[in-house]
């Protein structure tokens, strides 16, 4: 049992607030991704969970135990640092073995676990080398192996795959997922790569300026973002945001109209690029500016009534810059956003 409960954590660095009243529950065995842009407080939150940073206020529970005042080594977790922190004066083997040695594990057990972890991360050929002779990506994998070797109940990872090439990252991603799944490790995984978060996590917490904007399963997050920020940050290409005037309960732009419930006279429609159909007539007028063939789709960038928008169409569609298309968004998939506060308007989703 090693769920994590983060209770109203606040962190200030001098006058600057890095985290604001952050509350979050990670269930036992869950894989939670912390997703957010640079500087939003992901590392700070992870360091507070680990006990490397002291919160200004709030409490942390791990497995039901209040660990707020405990030193890191008594919290029973492992961590992968954003800048690896692989010990330069120890061989890769000794690095991976470090946690086990600290626990006083027998040599045979150490060897077994080191080999298992090294195998998972494909670093067996480097076990006798010193970290200075490894590439950045290899060092990063040593850091991950060091954390996996202790078979922790709670694992904190700060962008552990950021330095790998695309292919290796994909492979490591699926291996991590299956290993952590089968061992039932509670994982908090920091990343600013939304594909990685979508692919790995049971749930994603999207952070922005020290607060969690939304926390949900990846698909729900993608389809029903709670704020404009989440819609723009999750998914590639980002969600389209098109402002429409509202008259008599109808949002209307071009020949497109949809009933909305808002007291304001403008509303923002959040529409995914793939939730838009090209129709013969009617709908939203779209002036194509750029065509990017992405293989599985053709991505069009252009303007709807002067506002930037992206549309994904069939790869064999015949479109050229300068064309005008008529777009019909599927009404059920539009996220209506209040432009004043950037929050999605009460959908029954």
């Amino acid at each position: 049992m090693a769920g994590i409960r983060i209770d109203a954590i606040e962190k200030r660095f001098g006058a600057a607030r890095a985290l604001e009243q952050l509350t979050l529950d990670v269930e036992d065995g869950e894989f939670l991704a912390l997703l957010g842009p640079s500087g939003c407080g992901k590392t700070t939150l992870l360091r507070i969970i680990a006990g490397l940073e002291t919160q200004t206020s709030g409490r942390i529970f791990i497995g039901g135990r209040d660990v707020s005042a405990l030193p890191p080594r008594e919290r029973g977790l492992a961590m992968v640092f954003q800048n690896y922190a692989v010990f330069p004066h120890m061989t890769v083997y000794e690095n991976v073995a470090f946690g086990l040695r600290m626990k006083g594990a027998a040599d045979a057990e150490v060897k077994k676990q080191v080999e298992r972890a090294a195998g998972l991360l494909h670093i067996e050929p480097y076990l006798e080398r010193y970290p200075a002779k490894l590439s950045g990506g290899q060092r990063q994998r040593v850091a991950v192996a060091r954390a996996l070797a202790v078979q922790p109940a709670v694992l904190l990872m700060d962008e552990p795959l950021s330095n790998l090439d695309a292919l290796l990252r994909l492979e490591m991603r699926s291996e991590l997922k299956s290993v952590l799944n089968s061992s039932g490790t509670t994982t908090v995984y920091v990343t600013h790569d939304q594909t990685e978060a979508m692919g790995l996590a049971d749930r994603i917490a999207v952070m922005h300026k020290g607060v969690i904007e939304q926390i949900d399963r990846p698909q729900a997050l993608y389809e029903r973002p709670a704020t404009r920020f989440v819609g723009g940050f999750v998914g590639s290409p980002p969600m389209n945001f098109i402002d429409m005037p509202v008259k008599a309960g109808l949002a209307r732009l071009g020949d497109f109209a949809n009933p909305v419930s808002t007291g304001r006279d403008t509303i923002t429609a959040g529409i995914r690029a793939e939730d838009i159909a090209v129709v013969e007539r009617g709908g939203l007028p779209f002036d194509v500016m750029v065509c990017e063939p992405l293989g599985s789709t053709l991505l069009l960038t252009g303007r709807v009534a002067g506002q930037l928008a992206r549309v994904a169409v069939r790869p064999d569609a015949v479109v050229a810059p300068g064309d005008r298309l008529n777009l019909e968004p599927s009404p059920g998939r539009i996220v209506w956003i209040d432009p004043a506060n950037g929050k999605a308007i009460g959908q029954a989703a």
Partner: protein
Amino acid sequence: MTNNRLLPYLLIAPATVFLVLLFVVPLVQTIALAFMDNGVASLTNFRKMAGDLNFGLSIGNTFLLVLAVIPLQICMALVMAMMIQKLDKGRDLVLWIWIIPLGISDLAAGLVWLAILQDRGYFNTVLNMLGLVDGPVNWLSYEAPVSLFVGVVLAEVWRATAIVLVILVAGLQLIPKEYGEAAEIFGAGPWTRFRKITLPLLKPSIQSALILRTVLAFEVFAVVYALSGRNFPVLVGEAYAWQHVNQNNGVAAAYAILVMAISLAATVIYIRALRTPPEMQP
């Protein structure tokens, strides 16, 4: 193109010339002085040096001093540096105060401790007030070699630990804090972190401090001279005495050569023993 290649050499030329004039030339002259007698090469000066009554004593004293002072200084500086590292506020101020002795010449430092330890010095006054002794005790006399030695060690430690501290603090600041943090996460307590992480990563700094301090400690003179005159003979003190009291610069030069040889040997030993292979450096 040619200009560019010459430029670096031009730029280091002044320093090189300066060193050759003020270091290499005197060195060659000293060697010549030591190994010549009346214009012919000979070992007379060295024989005279070795035959002197104070020779064995000064070697013994110097080594004893080095063996007592250096480990003490390294340990103290390590403890002090680790303590400073833990401070959040006022760290610079503490460092400032701790390195004040750096700004004091060794003769002045010797005189400070003379003022404390002499017959009518502060130490005796305090002892007297506490009723622990009646009348002045002569701590620095020829008949009290232990207290004399302790006095010299105290003065040396007080005077020259600061430079070790500065080197170690600089070295500690170069170690990214994540190493210690990672070790802590994986279960290492404070002592284990110090032994397994800090100490190995600090090795290059410790090596520098050891070399610098040891070389300087073998040259110890002014502090000893201020506290004891010639009651506690040391190597450089003997060189000074032969030069100025006995007016024999040949034997003085022989002492100088001996001190240099010992310092060189110590340096070589440190470099060998505390070598950090390049692949183990961060």
